[in-house]
């Protein structure tokens, strides 16, 4: 499966997240984080299902320390739903089934 998750860093955060017409699900991760790698397939499976309602991006906290600080990320993986670049909800689910249920409750 080709990745449908957009990689975001401090250079394209404004364009991809702040200016997004859709709410953005941000996956804070790092390449060395095994639970983050385990979560990624669920997010990649969700992305096409919610392509009309949601954009999904991932932010490597090591490569983007300012974004890590902006969202006060102190452990990973960490999932935030953001609107206009600001967090509106934190998602705690870790399987596609639970995440879909959580998103269905949050999204209009």
């Amino acid at each position, binding site marked *: *499966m080709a990745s449908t998750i957009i990689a975001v860093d401090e250079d394209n955060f404004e364009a991809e997240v702040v200016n997004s017409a859709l709410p953005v699900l941000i996956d804070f991760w790092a390449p060395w984080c095994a639970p983050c790698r385990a979560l990624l397939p*669920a997010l990649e499976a969700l992305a096409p299902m919610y392509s009309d309602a949601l954009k999904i991006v991932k932010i490597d906290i090591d490569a983007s320390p300012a974004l890590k600080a902006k969202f006060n990320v102190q452990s990973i993986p960490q999932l935030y739903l953001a609107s206009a670049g600001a967090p509106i909800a934190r998602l*705690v689910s870790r399987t596609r*089934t639970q995440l879909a249920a959580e998103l269905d409750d949050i999204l209009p």
Partner: protein
Amino acid sequence: MTLQAFNSSQAVKVSMIEPVRKLWLARAVVPDVDLVWNGHGKASSISGLLGRTDDRETFEQRTGIPADLAKLCECLLTMGITKTPASDAAAIAGNEALLAFGTEWLDAIAPGAELGMTVPRFARHCMDLILRPDFPLAVHVSPALVEAAGQIRDLWDRELAGQSVSRGEWRGVQRAAMSAAASDGDAWAYRIASFIEGIAWPIATVSHEFTGLFEPMFFNCLMFEETAFMTDEERSDRAHMLLGWKAMATAPRDEIGLVDPDPLEAHPESARVLSAEYLEQMMGRMAEIRAAAQGRKDTIIRETMDTVLRLIRSA
């Protein structure tokens, strides 16, 4: 994108597999569920070496093999080997019958084979096993979980028969699976419940997540084989250990991801068997039990490998 194994060429197959076989037989390759290639002093995985890459898409383009199938095969191997720390080379040990699978799965792939449904069909096989009355953990799986697993298998069978299944039907099954998993309190059922809940999706879409859900469940099933060699007290302690792991894994976390309060406070017996003192005290006994159960575990792993080989050959 439809993948065709080894670019439909026997010559390509041989040219890709033989370098892997040479290093695998020298035990200089270490199975890994992640593609590992030229990794900063870390030995390559079988698949990483085969595709000479650590990138999934590049691996699939070069080999014509779904990365998810490679991941499953590497996962089965990791269950049957011991990695030995070595300063200058990788070192692994294990039952030769299991180690043989390191290249058997590659040899089983026919040039031109389309293997995209191999992992989904293996998922279907796993669901069948869970639902069998002689499943070793059957007494630990609640009727609600059995019902949810049966519903998933029924929808998969309809899909495999070419029938359409609506999003609404899947939502109903997903809700049933989540409810059954959430209400289950059996120490041995947690990983099975997580598998059933996480895999409740159309069969054509489950490959990518499969091994991540299968690995802990399979490990759980192998660990259960050890209980045949335990005393009643040791079995009880193991159950408390599993409940402790579940409590820590599922404890609510605060905004910065920390668990508060300590989830084991409500599980004093779990706290006891997860304490460093207990683990140190039981280390020798647990090694004895693992050694006693190794033959049973190896048999299960080998049977599972044979199932994967059958599915690969029938693709």
